[in-house]
């Protein structure tokens, strides 16, 4: 027997021992819950974890949204009804944040809305272009597919720190600008620049994930359709409009919804990159919730909880939309 065979035999013995060791407790469990109850018994630990770490906090969050004061413990918080929501929604003109009682909330909402529109559209377009290129016959295709995906593997903090180092006043990008005879630009300290750089960094960090999904969608399109179009002499633009886009549409919609949900939740990269500054130029809704609840000296847990529920409603609508798209896609 060679080494490989001996190793395999050893592993098999360990496996058999393990299964024999597990047999008695599972047999006892089956005697208690019955054969039909066994699947529920296996699912129960996950359900308990889900309940403890997701469902219970959501219920508590709703409780916080209807209570006031800066106390954390539920028993010490007086009920305030809809006051938190009323405060958040108290605006003379929803398009003018300065007319709102909670102007920081509405600034965050406006910032997030603009961020979502710009970030998602550029993400989807750029991911599609990348997927189309990577689907073609290019040199070192495997290498480039990996390169596009690498940023997805990085921690958001690492991504933000890398780009902070590049974009800061004495950073790499300004060194290049100065090298070409230009003047330093306050990429992260000018409100407009900072806002667009947060979009760029977010797209750079996550594009690879959506490119991969679109690539899979492209590869699912039957090749004979393209062959038939080629034989018919169809132009590439027409092929793209009449074959690629319609057949890729379900995947495109999934990518759109997923990126929409993710962009509404933008926080980690932006928080490290700009801290929400300058001023509140890059403060998005999740950072507003965090700062209102935890970072400010007076912890307005109720207001933050109410804001998070409003965000959750938006995300729920997007999720239902995605489920509907998937349902129609399956049909």
């Amino acid at each position, binding site marked *: 027997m060679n080494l490989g065979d001996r190793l395999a035999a050893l592993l098999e013995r360990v496996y058999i021992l393990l299964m024999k*060791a597990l047999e008695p407790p599972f047999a006892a469990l089956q005697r208690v819950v019955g054969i039909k109850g066994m699947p529920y018994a296996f699912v129960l630990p996950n359900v308990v974890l889900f309940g403890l770490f997701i469902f219970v906090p959501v219920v508590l969050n709703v409780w916080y949204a209807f209570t006031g004061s800066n106390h954390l413990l539920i028993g010490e918080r007086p009920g305030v009804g809809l006051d938190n929501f009323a405060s958040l929604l108290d605006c003379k003109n929803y398009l003018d944040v*300065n007319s709102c009682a909670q102007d920081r909330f509405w600034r965050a909402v406006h910032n997030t809305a603009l961020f979502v529109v710009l970030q998602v559209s550029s993400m989807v377009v750029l991911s599609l272009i990348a997927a189309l290129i990577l689907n073609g016959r290019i040199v070192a295709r495997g290498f480039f597919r990996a390169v596009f995906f690498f940023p997805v593997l990085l921690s958001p903090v690492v991504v933000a720190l890398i780009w902070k180092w590049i974009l800061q006043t004495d950073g790499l990008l300004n060194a290049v600008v100065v090298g070409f005879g230009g003047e330093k630009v306050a990429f*992260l300290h000018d409100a407009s620049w900072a806002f667009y750089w947060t979009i760029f960094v977010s797209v750079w960090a996550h594009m690879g994930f959506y490119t991969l999904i679109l690539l899979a969608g492209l590869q699912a399109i039957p090749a004979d359709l393209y062959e038939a179009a080629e034989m018919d002499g169809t132009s590439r633009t027409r092929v793209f409009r009449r074959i690629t886009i319609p057949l890729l549409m379900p995947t495109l919609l999934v990518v759109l919804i997923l990126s929409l949900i993710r962009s509404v939740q933008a926080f980690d990269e932006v928080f490290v990159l700009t801290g929400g500054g*300058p*001023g*509140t130029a890059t403060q998005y809704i999740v950072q507003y919730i965090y700062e209102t609840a935890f*970072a400010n*000296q007076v912890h307005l847990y109720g207001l933050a909880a109410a804001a998070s529920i409003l965000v959750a409603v938006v995300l729920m609508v997007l999720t239902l939309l995605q489920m509907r798209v998937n349902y129609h896609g399956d049909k």
Partner: protein
Amino acid sequence: MFNRRTLLAGAAALLVSAAALTQFSLPALADPTEVRVMWYSDGNEGDVMRDLLDRFEKANPDIKVTLDRVPYKTINEQLPTLLDSGQGPDMARVSDLGGLSRHYLDVRPMFKNPGYFDENYATTLPWLRPADGLAHGIYGVMTQMTLTIPIVNVTLFQQAGVPLPAAGATWADWVKATRAVAEKVKAPYPIAIDRSGHRIFGPSISMGAKVFDSKGQPAILDDGFKSMMQTLVTWHGDGTMSKALWGSVGGSSYRGANEEFGNGQVVMYFSGTWQFGQFAKSVGKNFEWQAVPEPCGPATCTGLPGGAALVPIKDTKHPKEVARILEWFGSEPVQAEFDARTLFLPANEAVAAKGVDYQTDDANVKKSLNVAVKELTKTAPLAFKLQGYENNRMVFNAVISRLNQAINGEMSLTDAYTRMQADVVEGLAAKGIKLQ
């Protein structure tokens, strides 16, 4: 070979041994009581504290002190939530003295000699007393006194050939001098001020801000305060202060300019005495620096006192041990050594009266400490009152976040004032205080 009985016996034996080791082992005789302290450091005080605690533990073998060293941001943002949830440490070093005071434990009944603390911490003990606390309670001990103070890069002044403004110089004199220096030596930051409400209230009081109304409630929007706010907006507009610093964070987040000062990029850095120890290390002999007297406004020439405190947390399960640590830490020899090694201003009045034998050969530090000690004696009483106000951090945060929005053009300064007031009212209301 392996039948079911053997397997079960083996597994049972394993389980019993594991249980015996983890759950049912007999406790070692006289295990020391572990007291956890959450601690942040500006300079070397964590190392100094650990060394002092090692000696305390030798003298008190029934207590083991674990010093959990965390960033300042953790103390500011995470500790309050931990304390609210009852999951905090036994003790903590905090700078939001009044804001967290509802969590402190009164250790006076457990002290052997509480009168010593009444005598030698008379100024600062009230800063730690919660609003509903005992009038003579001892709720912690300051780890140091601090004073906000300008620190200048003397070398840059020398290189530029610009003389340092003398004591009594106004903020306008300093702006003129620092801008002249910055222009000549191409320094990017003529003046840098920590992005902190605590920092800007000293100059505001110098400009005539009264801060409180006749009932002792915050009434910040007076001419003196507005004058300083307008000055800060102007400075950010004309390049005296760079938006790169305050603009790099949002909300009420803190942003210091230590790194920029250490890199020789800042002509005058308005920060505080807690930086001396750090600069002794980080700047070393790279350039000459020193603290200078407080710039003057029309009303006075003051900084804002402050400091951090080592506080006992009322949820601690070891109140007696915590009291022993605190009484030890507040004693004269420990305070004298702590201040001497950390280069902090003394909070213990007996130590201050005798003078501290600072352990440094750094001439910059020695000069700066001399200046700071003198300036502390000239600090305005209103500045002490503001530092002792329980909700001062809430006022500071409201001011700095709205001021920053005005500086970045998100709103006018007039709108910023309205928002500052609204934020203060909202913050106090959340604490059950109605501003009249």
